[in-house]
C-alpha cells in the first residue's frame, strides 16, 4: 500500500466513530419486535379489508359478441372515496383509502428500495421506481416500472432505466430522469410518448456535468414541467419551469425564485398555482398554495399544517385534494387535506414513506370487444418503441380487437381463423377464458409464439416471461439471482410454494387473485430448477419474469 494511501487512511480513521455493540444490539432486537407486533395488528385489519375489497372479478354479462367485466372497484370502492398510492419502505406500493387510511391493496412487495411514484390520470397504471430509494439523484440500477391496476391487477413491467417518473395530465406521456453522463447523476430529462414509445431527451445542462435535476412535475395543461435543478456545489437549486415545446435544455428554462425556507413540490389544480411548503417554526410546516409570477413564486394561502417538513406533496387533478408526506428518523406522516377542511387528517402508514400520489378511481366497468369463443382471448393494449413483434398461432386462441379494452393503443393486428400475427412492441396481453376470470400478463420486449396448447412459448429474449397454465411450473436456471413470479388462481385464494430443485422451500405465499411475489435464488451458483406448486387444486396460472440482478 502506498504511503499517501496510509496517510489518507489515518485521516479517515480520525473521522470514524465507535458505538456500543451490546446496547445497539438490544435496541435493534427491541425495535424489530415492536415492528412485528405492529405488523400483526395491521395484518388483522388488512385481512378483513382485503376479503371484502379484492379479488372479486365477476363476469356480469356475456353477450354474443362481447364480454363486460366488472372491476373490483365497482364492487368494493364507492365512487366518492379517494384512493392514494404510497411507497412504503419494506412494504412496497400500497393503495390506501384516503378517508379511513385502510390499506386496500399491496401492489408490489418485490423490491427493497422504491423511489418516486406517479399514477396515471385514469387510475389504471402506476409508474414507480425500483432500485433507488427516496430522493436519490443517481440512477444506478434504478428502473421505472409500470403496474397495471386494471381488471384484475397485473404484474409490473419495465419501462426502462430512470428515476422520478411523472405521467402527464392526458396519460399519454411519461416524464422521467435518466443518467446519460459519466457522473451517474440525473442529468437528462426524458419525455416518452407512451403510445409510440418515441422519446425526447433534454439535457439538464449540456455544458455542465455537475448539474442534476429532481422530480419533474407536469403543469395542468401538460405544456410545462417544473423541477428543481441542483447546480453543483456552489450554484444552488432553483426551480426551473421547462416549456416542453420550445426549451432544449433546463439551462434555458425559466428560473423561478422563492423563499429559502420553503420548498415547491408541483402544481396545484387547473389554475396553475404551485403547491409548496414553508417552515412554520417549532418543527412544523405550512403546506401552501403559491402564486406563480414571472420570476418568483409567492405563498398565497396556507392550506394545512404538518408536524415536520414535508419531503413530498401532491395535489389531485382538481386541486381540491392535497396530500403531504413527512418522514424523519422517528416519525412518518401522511397528511390528507380536502378543500374546506380546517386541518389535514393524518393517516398511519405501515412504515417509512417518501412518496405518494392520488390514484383516481378507474371506470367502473370495461367492455372488451371480441368474439365470445371458448378459447383464450388475447388483447393487445399497448405499444413501445423497441420493435418487438408478436406472432401467434393456435386452434382456439383468437385475438380480440386491438383497441377497446384499455382505450390506449392502436395496434396493427390482422387475425385469421388460426393465425394471429400482430405487431405490438412492448405489449401487454390480457387473457380471458370463457367462464373464467381474465388473466392479465404484462410482457416486455418479446417475440412470443403461441403454441397449439395455448401456451406462450419463450423465444430468445422472450424468456423474460413465460406463462404456464398448470399446477406446477418448473423454471430453468438462467443464471440470475432473482425471479419474480406472478400467479393467479382461478378458484380464489390458494397457496403457492416456491421451491428450489434441491427441495429447500424458499417461499410460500398465498395467492389471492393475481399475486406477485419474489423468490431470491441462492444456490451457491449451482444450477437450479425453481418449482411453483399450486397446493390447493387446479387452475393455477403462473407467469414468471427472469430479469435482473437486483437490490
Amino acid at each position, binding site marked *: 500500500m502506498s504511503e499517501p494511501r496510509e496517510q489518507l487512511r489515518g485521516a479517515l480513521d*480520525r473521522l470514524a*466513530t465507535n458505538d456500543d*455493540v451490546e446496547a445497539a*444490539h438490544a435496541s435493534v432486537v427491541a425495535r424489530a419486535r415492536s415492528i412485528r407486533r405492529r405488523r400483526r395488528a395491521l395484518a388483522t385489519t388488512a385481512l378483513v379489508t382485503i376479503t371484502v375489497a379484492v379479488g372479486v372479478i365477476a363476469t356480469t354479462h356475456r353477450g354474443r359478441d362481447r364480454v363486460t367485466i366488472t372491476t373490483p372497484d365497482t364492487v368494493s370502492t364507492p365512487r366518492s372515496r379517494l384512493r392514494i398510492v404510497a411507497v412504503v419502505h419494506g412494504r412496497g406500493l400500497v393503495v390506501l383509502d384516503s378517508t379511513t387510511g385502510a390499506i386496500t391493496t399491496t401492489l408490489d412487495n418485490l423490491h427493497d428500495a422504491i423511489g418516486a411514484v406517479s399514477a396515471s390520470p385514469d387510475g389504471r397504471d402506476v409508474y414507480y421506481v425500483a432500485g433507488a430509494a*427516496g*430522493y436519490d439523484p*443517481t440512477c*444506478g440500477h434504478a428502473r421505472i416500472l409500470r403496474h397495471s391496476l386494471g381488471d384484475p391487477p397485473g404484474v409490473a413491467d419495465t419501462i426502462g432505466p430512470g428515476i422520478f417518473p411523472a405521467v402527464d395530465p392526458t396519460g399519454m406521456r411519461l416524464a422521467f430522469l435518466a443518467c446519460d453522463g459519466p457522473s*451517474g447523476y440525473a442529468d437528462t430529462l426524458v419525455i416518452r410518448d407512451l403510445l409510440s414509445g418515441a422519446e425526447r431527451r433534454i439535457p439538464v445542462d449540456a455544458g455542465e456535468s455537475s448539474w442534476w435535476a429532481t422530480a419533474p412535475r407536469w403543469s395542468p395543461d401538460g405544456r410545462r414541467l417544473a423541477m428543481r435543478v441542483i447546480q453543483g456545489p456552489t450554484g444552488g437549486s432553483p426551480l426551473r419551469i421547462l416549456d416542453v415545446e420550445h426549451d432544449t435544455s433546463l439551462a434555458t428554462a425559466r428560473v423561478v425564485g422563492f423563499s429559502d425556507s*420553503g420548498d415547491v413540490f408541483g402544481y396545484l389544480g387547473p389554475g396553475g398555482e404551485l403547491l409548496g411548503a414553508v417552515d412554520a417554526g417549532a418543527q412544523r410546516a405550512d403546506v401552501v398554495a403559491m402564486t406563480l409570477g414571472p420570476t418568483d413564486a409567492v405563498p398565497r394561502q396556507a392550506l394545512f399544517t404538518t408536524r415536520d417538513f414535508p419531503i413530498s406533496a401532491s395535489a389531485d387533478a382538481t386541486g381540491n385534494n392535497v396530500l403531504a408526506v413527512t418522514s424523519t428518523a422517528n416519525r412518518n406522516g401522511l397528511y390528507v387535506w380536502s378543500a374546506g377542511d380546517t386541518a389535514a387528517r393524518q393517516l398511519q402508514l405501515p412504515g417509512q414513506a417518501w412518496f405518494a400520489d392520488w390514484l383516481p378511481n378507474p371506470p367502473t366497468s370495461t367492455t372488451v370487444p371480441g368474439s365470445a369463443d371458448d378459447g383464450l382471448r388475447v388483447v393487445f393494449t399497448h405499444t413501445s418503441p423497441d420493435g418487438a413483434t408478436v406472432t401467434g398461432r393456435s386452434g382456439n386462441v383468437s385475438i380480440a380487437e386491438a383497441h377497446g379494452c384499455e382505450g390506449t393503443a392502436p395496434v396493427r393486428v390482422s387475425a385469421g381463423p388460426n393465425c394471429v400475427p400482430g405487431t405490438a412492441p412492448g405489449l401487454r396481453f390480457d387473457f380471458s377464458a370463457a367462464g373464467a376470470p381474465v388473466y392479465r400478463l404484462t410482457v416486455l420486449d418479446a417475440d412470443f409464439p403461441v403454441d397449439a396448447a395455448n401456451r406462450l412459448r419463450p423465444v430468445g429474449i422472450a424468456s423474460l416471461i413465460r406463462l404456464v397454465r398448470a399446477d406446477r411450473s418448473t423454471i430453468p436456471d438462467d443464471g440470475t439471482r432473482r425471479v419474480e413470479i406472478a400467479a393467479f388462481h382461478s378458484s380464489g385464494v390458494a397457496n403457492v410454494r416456491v421451491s428450489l430443485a434441491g427441495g429447500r422451500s424458499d417461499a410460500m405465499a398465498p395467492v389471492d387473485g393475481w399475486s406477485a411475489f419474489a423468490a431470491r435464488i441462492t444456490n451457491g451458483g449451482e444450477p437450479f430448477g425453481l418449482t411453483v406448486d399450486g397446493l390447493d387444486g387446479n387452475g393455477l396460472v403462473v407467469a414468471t419474469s427472469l430479469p435482473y440482478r437486483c437490490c
Partner: protein
Amino acid sequence: MGKAKESVAEFDAMFRDHYPRLVRSLSVAGDGAADAVQEAFVQALLRWRTIGRYDDPVGWVRRVALRRMLNEHRSRRRRDAFVERLSAHPAEGRVELDDAPDGPDEQLVALVVGLPRQQRIAVALRYYDDLPVSEVAEAMGISEGAVRYHLHEARKRLRAVLGAIDV
C-alpha cells in the same frame, strides 16, 4: 437447537462481528451512521429468513444503511433550505486550503470533510473500508464508472496535501 433459534443466533453473530466496522466506516462517510446501521439491522432481522441466505448479507446491510444516511441527509437539507447554497456551508462544500487548519493531517481531514457527499462516501468505502470498486458501486447503488469518477474527483481535491493514490 431449533431452526428459529439457530437463525437468531446467526443474526446475533453477524451483528456482533460486523456492526462496529460498519459504523466506523460509514461514520467516515457521513453523519448518522450508527442510527442508519441499526435501522438496517432492524430491517435485516425482520426478514432474516430471506436475507440470511444472501451471499453477502453484510453488503445488504451496508447498502440499506447508506441509502438511509443519504435520504436522511437529503430530508434534512430540504428542510433546512430550499435553495442550497453549499458555498455558505464549508462542511458540505469545497474547503480551500487557506481556510483549513495548519498541519498536513488536519488539512487532509478538513479536505475529506469538505468533499461532496458522494465523493466522501466513495473515499470512505474504498480507502477506509478497503472495498473493491465493484462493491463500492453496489453499496452506493451507482455504476463502477461513477464510483471511479467520484474517486478521481476526490483524489484531485486531496492531491494538494496528498501524493497520488493508486485506485
